[in-house]
């Protein structure tokens, strides 16, 4: 499909390397149009109007002498993607920043199908810009729900409920009821000549002293 684009202002389309004056037209293919966000934006903002080439007024297949139904040229409408507004609220409570977002996304609509239906139904009456605006309203939006409504008090309790605090540790693990048959079950050995151990302890003591003095 080839479109005929007509400039409604003096503009420059950098992506297509074109400088155009008001009223000038140029041809562009559907793929060119779809791959150029700049062109889409210009169409969306109403600087360029886009029409399908060779979509001349044509008569309907039914002819009679009384009525002549004229079909208007097809108007291609631009679907302007509404910028997704993502709102992140940062709340700083006692040097703790917790960001929590719940992103609720509405089901994706088939925008092309919707646009085609609108064009067919309203093409003859409403401008492409108006249709674009209407379609834009139907675009999926992101709703950011901020669950950051915790008070400083609740944050405090959250900090205290760490994994460690939540872990249950049983008491009285060593039962006094247990009867042991002999004095000890462990093997005892003596490790002699452990100068290294004494040296390590002295070195550690010295190092700690130096660090304390610094």
């Amino acid at each position: 499909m080839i479109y005929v684009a007509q400039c409604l202002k003096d503009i420059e389309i950098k992506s297509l390397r074109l400088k155009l004056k008001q009223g000038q037209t140029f041809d562009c293919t559907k793929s060119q149009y779809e791959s150029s966000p700049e062109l889409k934006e210009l169409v969306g903002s109403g600087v360029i109007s886009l029409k399908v080439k060779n979509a001349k007024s044509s008569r309907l297949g039914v002819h009679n002498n009384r009525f002549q139904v004229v079909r208007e040229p097809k108007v291609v409408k631009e679907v302007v993607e509404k910028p997704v507004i993502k709102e992140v609220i940062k709340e700083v409570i006692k040097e703790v920043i917790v960001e929590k977002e719940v992103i609720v996304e509405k089901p994706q609509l088939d925008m092309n199908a919707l646009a085609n239906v609108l064009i067919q139904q309203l093409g003859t009456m409403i401008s492409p810009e108006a249709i674009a605006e209407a379609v834009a309203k139907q675009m999926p939006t992101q709703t950011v729900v901020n669950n950051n409504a915790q008070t400083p008090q609740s944050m405090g309790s959250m900090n205290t409920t760490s994994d460690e605090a939540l872990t249950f540790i049983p008491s009285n693990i060593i039962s006094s009821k247990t009867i042991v048959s002999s004095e000890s079950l462990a093997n005892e050995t003596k490790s002699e000549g452990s100068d290294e151990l004494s040296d390590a302890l002295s070195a550690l003591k010295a190092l700690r002293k130096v660090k304390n003095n610094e």
Partner: protein
Amino acid sequence: MSKGVGLDIGTMNLVSARMSGKKNEVTLRRMRDLFIDLPQSAKKMLRLGSVSYIEADDNLLVLGDEAMEVANMFGREGRRPLKAGLISADEIDSLTVLGHMVKDVLGDPSHEGEHCYFSIPAAPVDANMDVVYHKGVFTRIVQECGYTAHPANEAMAIVFAETAKEGFSGVGISFGSGMTNIALAISTIEGLSFSVARGGDWIDQGAARSVGATASKMCAVKEKGIDLKAPKNREEEAISFYYKALIEHALDNIAQQFVMKGGHLTLNKPIPIVVGGGTSLAGGFMDFFKEVFETKKKRFPIEISEVRHASDPLHAVSKGMLILAQQEYDED
């Protein structure tokens, strides 16, 4: 008797270390982390065989090395209260058994609230395991024994025991049975610590799968004595293969973790790697380790001065813990 006690809580052994009355003599008490339950009817037989046991909840529990002998006698597998370095959730009697083992290995405190440093593993980087419960339970057990409990990183104990001449800077690796613990320290400060959920048990299981044997058989082959650099049969070859894979895994993770988490650390001079733990006792382990390290040395992000075995690999952790416990009194 000197004050302070160190305790190494390992998957295979519990070892306590304390200075005895004699100069520079360390008393080590060890118990194998193994038990077996027997019915009350077996009591007479255990007495006749002079086998020590404890009676808990109508059960006879044989602990330690004797449990292995009794298990062999009854044709059963010994039960282990720790699994992969942490308290085994599958063993209902774990806590009772561990409580008595720790009490036995530690003995009575020399004074009320004597300081006891005990080893805990770092969180593994390759498995989803929680060390919080493990740490909490052992803190409670040590306290119930009458000590002031101080949990401390297992691999850091190797640094304290073995790198005094380097000013307590180095990489300590504890190749244990359940996992391998790694710590990098600079002048006593822990810069990086983590563990990998692979150790001696992982080698046994892997080798057993490869040759169609049981893990206990592979463990027996290992403990009987094996030269990793010259395996004599298919079983030893499989063990050797998994040892190499374990060393590679540990070294790769050291490099990866250092790049990810230790980038802020400034190493002014090369530091040593000191290897300890029961799994490192296999014949030729250090040669094997050095060989694997040489292949990775070029791309290793830490400048290493030397790779050496701990002077007492099996007791390096308990001795390191003892040093930490003793310094509590030196500060008084």
